[in-house]
C-alpha cells in the first residue's frame, strides 16, 4: 500500500478544514456546499465504476433513483422510519442495479454507455406509468421526512457522508483492488491474462458504485424533502455528474470532489450576474474547454504544474 504519512496529514487537514468551514462562511454558501457535497458523492460513485474501469455509465441516475425512490416510497407511503428505509434503499440499489445491469457488463465501450442511457430512459418512463399511486407519477412526492433542518446541520450531515465515502474509497483504491480496477480501464485482456476474473472485479466496482449511489441518493432525497422523476432521470443530471468527475480528474478520489465543488460554485457565483440559463452556457463552455485541453481534468493540470516530470502526456 502506497500510504505515506503526509497523505494522512493532508486528509486530516482537509477534514478539519471542511468541518471548521461553517464558522467562516455564510449560510447561503453552506447551502451551496451541501449540493456540492452530494454532487461529489455521486461523482465518486460514477468514478468508482466508470473512471476506474473505463466502463462509462450514462445512466447513473438510474442507480441514484432506485435508492431515492425506495426510501421515498417506504417513508412516504408506508411510514417507515428513515433509519430503516435508507439501508433498505442501499440494498435495493445494489440488488436492483445488479440484476438489471449485470448482463450489460459483458459489453464494452460505447455499447455499455448506451445500455445504461437506455436503462435510465426506461425507468424514467416506467416510474411515471407504473403505480403512480406509489411513485407520485410525474409530480413525484413532496413533504418527505427530512433528516436535518438548517444550513449548518445539513452541511455537517452531507460533509460527513461525503468525507466518509471519499476516505473509504481512497483507502480501498490504494489497495491492490484499486490497482486491479484501474488495470481493467487500461487493458482488460491483460487483467484476465494475469489470472484475475474481470467479471468479478467489474461486479465489485459496480456494487461499490451502486452502494455509494444508493446511499447518496437516499440521503439526498431526505435532504431535499421532495422527489421528482424529471429532476432525477435527466440527461442534464447525468451530464453534471460526469462533468464533475471528469473536470476534477477521473480515476482519482480528490478529482471528483474538486470537480463537484468547482462546478457547483461556478454556477452559484454566476447567479447574480447571469440569473438564467445563460449560466449553463458558461458552465458547459468552460467544461468543454477544460476537457478538450486536459481530459484528465484539473487535478492533472495542477499536478502537472507542480511536478512536471511525473505526469505523462
Amino acid at each position, binding site marked *: 500500500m502506497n500510504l505515506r504519512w503526509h497523505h494522512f496529514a493532508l486528509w486530516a487537514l482537509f477534514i478539519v478544514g471542511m468541518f471548521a468551514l461553517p464558522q467562516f462562511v455564510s*449560510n447561503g454558501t453552506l*447551502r451551496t456546499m451541501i449540493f456540492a457535497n452530494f454532487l461529489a458523492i455521486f461523482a465518486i460513485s460514477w468514478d468508482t465504476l466508470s473512471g476506474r474501469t473505463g466502463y462509462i455509465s450514462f445512466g447513473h441516475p438510474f442507480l441514484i433513483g432506485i435508492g431515492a425512490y425506495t426510501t421515498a416510497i417506504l417513508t412516504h407511503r408506508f411510514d417507515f422510519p428513515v433509519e430503516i428505509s435508507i439501508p433498505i434503499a442501499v440494498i435495493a440499489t445494489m440488488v436492483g442495479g445488479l440484476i438489471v445491469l449485470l448482463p450489460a457488463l459483458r459489453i464494452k465501450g460505447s455499447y455499455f454507455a448506451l445500455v445504461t442511457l437506455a436503462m435510465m430512459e426506461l425507468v424514467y418512463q416506467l416510474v411515471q406509468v407504473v403505480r403512480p399511486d406509489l411513485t407520485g407519477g*410525474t409530480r*413525484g412526492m*413532496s413533504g*418527505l421526512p427530512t433528516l436535518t433542518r438548517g444550513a449548518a446541520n445539513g452541511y455537517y450531515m452531507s460533509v460527513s457522508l461525503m468525507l466518509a465515502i471519499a476516505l473509504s474509497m481512497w483507502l480501498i483504491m490504494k489497495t491492490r483492488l484499486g490497482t486491479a480496477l484501474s488495470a481493467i480501464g487500461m487493458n482488460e485482456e491483460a487483467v484476465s491474462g494475469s489470472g484475475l476474473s474481470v467479471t468479478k472485479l467489474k461486479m465489485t466496482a459496480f456494487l461499490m458504485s451502486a452502494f455509494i449511489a444508493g446511499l447518496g441518493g437516499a440521503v439526498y432525497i431526505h435532504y431535499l424533502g421532495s422527489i*421528482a422523476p424529471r*429532476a432525477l432521470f435527466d440527461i442534464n443530471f447525468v451530464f453534471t455528474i460526469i462533468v464533475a468527475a471528469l473536470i476534477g480528474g477521473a480515476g482519482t478520489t480528490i478529482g471528483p470532489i474538486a470537480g463537484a465543488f468547482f462546478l457547483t460554485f461556478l454556477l452559484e457565483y454566476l447567479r447574480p450576474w447571469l*440569473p438564467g440559463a445563460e449560466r449553463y452556457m458558461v458552465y458547459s463552455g468552460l467544461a468543454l474547454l477544460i476537457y478538450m485541453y486536459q481530459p484528465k481534468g484539473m487535478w492533472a493540470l495542477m499536478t502537472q504544474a507542480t511536478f512536471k516530470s511525473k505526469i505523462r502526456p
Partner: protein
Amino acid sequence: MTLRKILTTSAAAGLMAVAGFAGSAFADIKVGFIGSLSSDTGLSTLRGAEMAIEELNAAGGMNGEKIVLVTADTQEDVTEGVKAYEYLAETEKADFIISGSIDDVSLGWMPRMQEYQIPTLDTWTSSISIIDMVVKDPELMAPYFMNIASDEALATLYINFGADVLKKKMGWDSVVILAEDTAFGQAITGLVTEAISPVAGIEVKDTIVYDVGTVDFAPIFSKAQATGADFIYQVSSVNSQVISSQYVKLQVPMPMTGVNVSALGMEYWEDTGGAGGGISTLSPVPSVGFKLDPVSADFVKRYQAKYTSRPKMPHFNGFNAYYGLKQAMAAAAEVGGFKDAKKWSKAMEKQDLVLKLDGKMSLRYGFWGKDEVEPVTKRTYPHNARFDLTAPYDDAQPSMVVVQWKEDGSVGVVYPFEFATTEFTVPSWIKK
C-alpha cells in the same frame, strides 16, 4: 442580429446585476422572485411583480421602506428550484417570495418554505395537493398562499361547461378522454370522469392515456375516432402545442376541447404558426380574450408600453403577481413587515380586492377562510384564491373560463355565458 441581441442582453444583464447589487446594499424590503426566467409563465409573474413594486416605490414604498426585487431562476427544474429558494432565503435573505413556478417545482421547494417560514405567494401552481398540506398542517403552511384557483375548482366548473354547452347546446352525448400520463392529467381525468356523466349526462366512451413525449398523435386520434364518441376531451399541460397543432395539421374530423396549457397566452397563435384554430381550453382568469375591468386594462396597457418582448400580454399569473404582491405589501404594512410570518399570514388572509366592470363583479382577489366550506365541492380551501362555482358569480370570479381560438386567429371567452365574448364553434373541417 443574433449577436447584437446577445451583446445587448448580456450588457443589460450586467447592468441589472450591478443595479441589483447596488440596490441590495441599501434595501429595506427584499422581494425574491422564483420561477423560470426564460418561459412566458415565469416572465408573466416576474413582470407583474416588477410593475407592482415600481408603483409601490413611486408611492413611497412599504411603510416608507424601499422595495427591491431579486430573482432566482428555476429553469423549470425541480432541483434548481430548491437551490433557487435556498439562494433567495440564505444569500439574498428575501423578506417575501413571489413564485411563478410550475407544479412540480413548487412541490420541490415546499419543504424549504416550511423550513424557512418565509411569506410566499404562488401565482401559477394550482396543485390541490399543496392546499391539502395547508389543511393538514395550517401552522407549518401559514406563510404560504396560492392566489390561483386550485385544479379541483377548475375541473368542477368545467363540468358545468359540459352540461351547458357541450350537451345542451351542441347536443353531444359521448366523449373520449385523451389525457397525458401526468399527475395533473390523472387528477383532472379523475374529476371529469366521475362528474361528467352524472352531472352533465355525457357518457365517457374511453380514456386514452398517452405519454408526454409522444411524437405522433395520428394513431391516438384514430383510436379516439374509433370509439365513436361525439367529441374529444383533452387534458394536456406538458408539450400541449404538439397535440393541438397535430390536431389541426391532421384535420381530425372530430371536435376537441379540454385543457391545453399552451393556448393560455397571446403567443399561442404565433407559436403554432397559425395552426391552432378551433382549439378551446379552460383557463384561470383573467385569460386571453377576457373582458378586463378598467384597472386591469390599464395594467395591461402599461405592461405593453414597458415590455416589448414575450409575453405580449401577461398570462393570468401576471395579474395574480401584480395584485398579489400589492396585497402582500399591504398586509406587511399592517403588521410592521414580514418578520413575523404568522402575523403577516393573518393579515394576508384578510386581504380582499374587488374589481368591477360595468358595475358587476369582474375579479376578486381574496382568500378562502380556514373553515369556510365551498358549497359546490363541499370542502375547504384555506389560503387558496377565492372563486365562485355558480352563476351569477357574484361572490367572486369563476374559477376558470373556457376560451377558444378561432381559425382567423382571434380568441374569445365562450363560457361562462356571463363572461362570454364569442360563441363555442367547431373547426370548419368538421362536417356536421
